[in-house]
């Protein structure tokens, strides 16, 4: 269960859990953490940790193999930046590991039942928490929310995304604790989008005209559990506990995000005890065993929304024939790839959605590895072996290139393995890898690639709307504004996606997304390999770490982390 649509039931549950109390999100989450999807009972038992200390104690050093550099939470950011934002800023509401919306700056999640949203879903009324202060002591009010939503519309402001926000009209501040707006049309994913939209201070930013002025980036001011400490570029970012935080916590004096550019060195320093927790990009699967054997530390296998695909460019003639796509998938030894190359560290999947999503379809047909049958299928479809043993049909050679980021060892190994698996079937795959900036530039956007191994997060903050990825109107190569670089096209999928974002009822949405997953599994525009389980680590006496599939960083609840003696 997650976000929105049948918000009535969602809200009911939250209200019930909160029993009318305005319990801050982090505490709610601490309560609900045990029931979080993806945590086995054994893990849950391990989580049943000693009680929290009565006062703040110690610091947490989290090692990251990417460097957080952007601290304006509305501008373009990477997941590693998001980990810092989540501790500096607050949103209207947050998402729990289970996918529930939890009030953060609001007192209640708006729904039809509580009058926060009109029956047609167009009129929104948001009630804000009072007594919240910014890190600099200024009071937080509805003006800040309006300023934030307006800023996202400002044509000069380099907003990361305007998806959803562009639908807002008549944003009106009713009182310091109440704000209303109208939506151009009801857009179900907007609940999720708001969970990823951090509110920024009007009194600091209203006077900023040069949006590339680094002043705010060098000293961001938020309402979150930690306030800005200092940044040493190329080394670390330090956040200090916010005494004025409206919620519970934090339970440590400060957190330090330490940049260690090599994952191997990161692991080594963690094992040696110089680092308390390993964040993005985790511990590589081949090192899990070593970490597991190390006394004093815990290895977490955190589920993520990341699904790794062998994706096809469905716009090129080689992949037009469904028989080819099916045969390729059948001849792909998924088990060996996941077991031997990825050390069994991930969760094989058939869907583009994570298993934790409320719209995940568990009944998709399982992959079968049968090269002989694949060959027969190609024969049957009229693909005959031609020059050099490569199959041909109607002048099209069954030959294509595969591109991924040069230097990504595991993906390069998968490429070489697939190259060898497909060759005997008369399928030729060449490897053409590029540096990341080239791979993900025009080459990717304009669908100049032929096939790729790519990890992608399809949902936004847990909402299963995948219009940007699979809608035929979202193909950038054809001037579409989305992220459907695979050039996937299916009229029925289009219809279902269009319909779903306007639905208030979540059961209906779920049924639609189930159907979309079925069709996509049949069409195979991309071969799903696995859902990534990220290997992360914490020291044994550090408590509170809770993976949350709905955020891109598991530093999301560091205000609840604490040390036991």
């Amino acid at each position, binding site marked *: 269960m997650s976000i929105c649509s049948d918000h009535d039931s969602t809200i009911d549950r939250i209200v019930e859990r909160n029993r009318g109390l305005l319990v801050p999100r982090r505490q709610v989450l601490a309560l609900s953490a045990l029931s979080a999807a993806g945590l086995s009972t054994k893990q849950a038992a391990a989580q049943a940790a000693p009680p929290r200390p009565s006062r703040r104690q110690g610091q947490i050093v989290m090692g990251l193999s990417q460097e957080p550099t952007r601290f304006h939470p509305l501008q*373009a950011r990477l997941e590693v930046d998001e980990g810092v934002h989540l501790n500096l800023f607050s949103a209207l509401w947050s998402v729990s590991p289970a996918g529930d919306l939890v009030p953060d700056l609001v007192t209640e999640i708006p729904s039809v039942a509580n009058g926060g949203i009109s029956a047609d879903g167009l009129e929104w009324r948001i009630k804000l928490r009072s007594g919240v202060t910014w890190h600099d002591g200024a009071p937080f009010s509805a003006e800040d929310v309006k300023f934030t939503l307006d800023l996202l519309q400002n044509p000069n402001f380099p907003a990361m995304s305007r998806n959803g926000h562009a639908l807002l009209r008549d944003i009106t501040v009713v009182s310091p604790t109440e704000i209303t707006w109208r939506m151009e049309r009801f857009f179900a994913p907007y609940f999720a989008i708001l969970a990823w939209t951090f509110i920024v201070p009007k009194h600091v930013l209203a006077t900023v005209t040069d949006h590339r002025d680094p002043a705010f980036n060098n000293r961001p001011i938020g309402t979150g559990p930690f306030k800005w400490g200092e940044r040493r570029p190329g080394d670390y970012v330090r956040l200090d506990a916010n005494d004025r935080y409206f919620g519970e916590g934090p339970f440590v004096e400060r957190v330090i995000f330490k940049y260690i550019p090599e994952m191997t060195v990161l692991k080594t320093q963690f094992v040696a005890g110089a680092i308390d927790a390993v964040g993005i990009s985790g511990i590589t699967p081949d090192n899990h065993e070593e970490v597991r054997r190390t006394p004093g530390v815990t290895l977490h296998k955190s589920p993520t929304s990341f699904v790794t695909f062998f994706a096809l460019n469905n716009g090129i003639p080689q992949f037009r024939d469904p028989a080819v796509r099916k045969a390729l998938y059948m001849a792909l030894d998924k088990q060996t790839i996941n077991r031997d190359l990825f050390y069994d560290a991930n969760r094989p999947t058939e869907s583009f959605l994570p298993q934790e999503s409320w719209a995940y379809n568990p009944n998709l047909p399982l992959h079968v590895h049968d090269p002989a049958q694949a060959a027969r299928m190609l024969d049957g479809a009229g693909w005959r072996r031609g020059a050099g043993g490569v199959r041909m049909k109607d002048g099209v050679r069954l030959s294509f290139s595969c591109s991924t980021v040069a230097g990504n060892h595991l993906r390069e190994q998968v490429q070489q393995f697939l190259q060898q698996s497909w060759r005997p079937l008369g399928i030729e795959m060449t490897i053409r890898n*590029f*540096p990341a900036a080239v791979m993900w530039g025009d080459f*990717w956007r304009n669908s100049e690639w032929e096939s790729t191994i790519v990890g992608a*997060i399809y*949902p936004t903050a847990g909402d299963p709307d995948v219009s940007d990825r699979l809608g035929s109107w979202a193909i950038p190569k054809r001037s579409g504004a989305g992220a459907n670089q695979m050039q996937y096209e299916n009229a029925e999928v289009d219809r279902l996606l269009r319909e779903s974002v306007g639905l208030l009822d979540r059961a209906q949405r779920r049924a639609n997304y189930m159907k979309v997953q079925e069709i996509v599994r049949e069409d195979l525009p991309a071969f799903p390999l696995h859902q990534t389980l990220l290997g992360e680590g914490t020291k044994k006496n550090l408590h509170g770490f809770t993976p949350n599939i709905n955020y891109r960083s598991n530093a999301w609840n560091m205000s609840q982390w604490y040390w036991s003696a």
Partner: protein
Amino acid sequence: MRDPVSRFLLRRLAQSAVLLWLVSMIGFGMLHLVPGGPLSQFANTPGMTDADLQRLATQMGLDRPIPMQYLDWAGGLLVGDWGKSYRDDSPVLRVIASRLGATVRLMLTATLIAVVVGGLVGIIGAVRRYSLFDQCVTIGTMVALSIPTFWFGLLVIYVFSVKLRWLPPGNIAPVGNESFLVFVHHLIGPALVLGLVTTALWSRFMRSSMLDVINQDYVRTARAKGLPPHAVLIHHVLRNALLPMITIAGLELPTLLGGALVTETVFTWPGMGRLFLDSIEYRDYPVVMGLLLFSAVLVIVGSLLADILHTVADPRVRPQ
């Protein structure tokens, strides 16, 4: 006498300015003409669509013609504005300055090792030419110059960090423990690796410079006058042999920067090399350009200083 010197200086300065202009053009053209850009990193960000990317490109001015972008950037440069990093909006000079310290410390240590060890080895090699020591050093330095630096770095980490656990596997210092001893402990590995090649070079330079001087007439004369060998060595040979080393120092220091890049990568040392690699990766054009110009300035200033020092120190090369 002052006149020709200042004229020489002026000419060199003018040449340097032209060089810098060429460097900036070549660098800027190279960077911008190739595929990929600073927005590539957001290609797979959930919630971000192609429309968002296009809008950001326009807002950042990335969709304008490259000559226009160059003129903008170069115009800023002329008034001292090196631009802002795409990654954190900080002024480029501040970004570079924040990493300079770590790199300088590493380079100075490596140079110190090189000058002391390389110099001594070179002097002994020249004095005891063809001895067993000299031959071993000749082979040793050549092998040192042939080892891929990063591989040597990996071996150092494997032996001293993984197996023996004597040295930390990298990084400048753990957070909150920045005492001098801890810093030195972290410095040993990278300084050793960066110092190896430099030491080999310096010893070769030193040896050949010494040999050049030993064969000069005045040394033979001094020797013939019956001066004790060590006096000849110190007063005549060493003094004159050090002269060309000044030039080499000027030319060598900037190239150390390149070596520091690889070493910093292996040991995750948060210096300029690491910054360059990250900036290339994220296509942070202003910072990459800043670093290219910065290193070009180092090279130019290095050779300028070498020339000046050489001119001052050696009357024979003074311009007429």
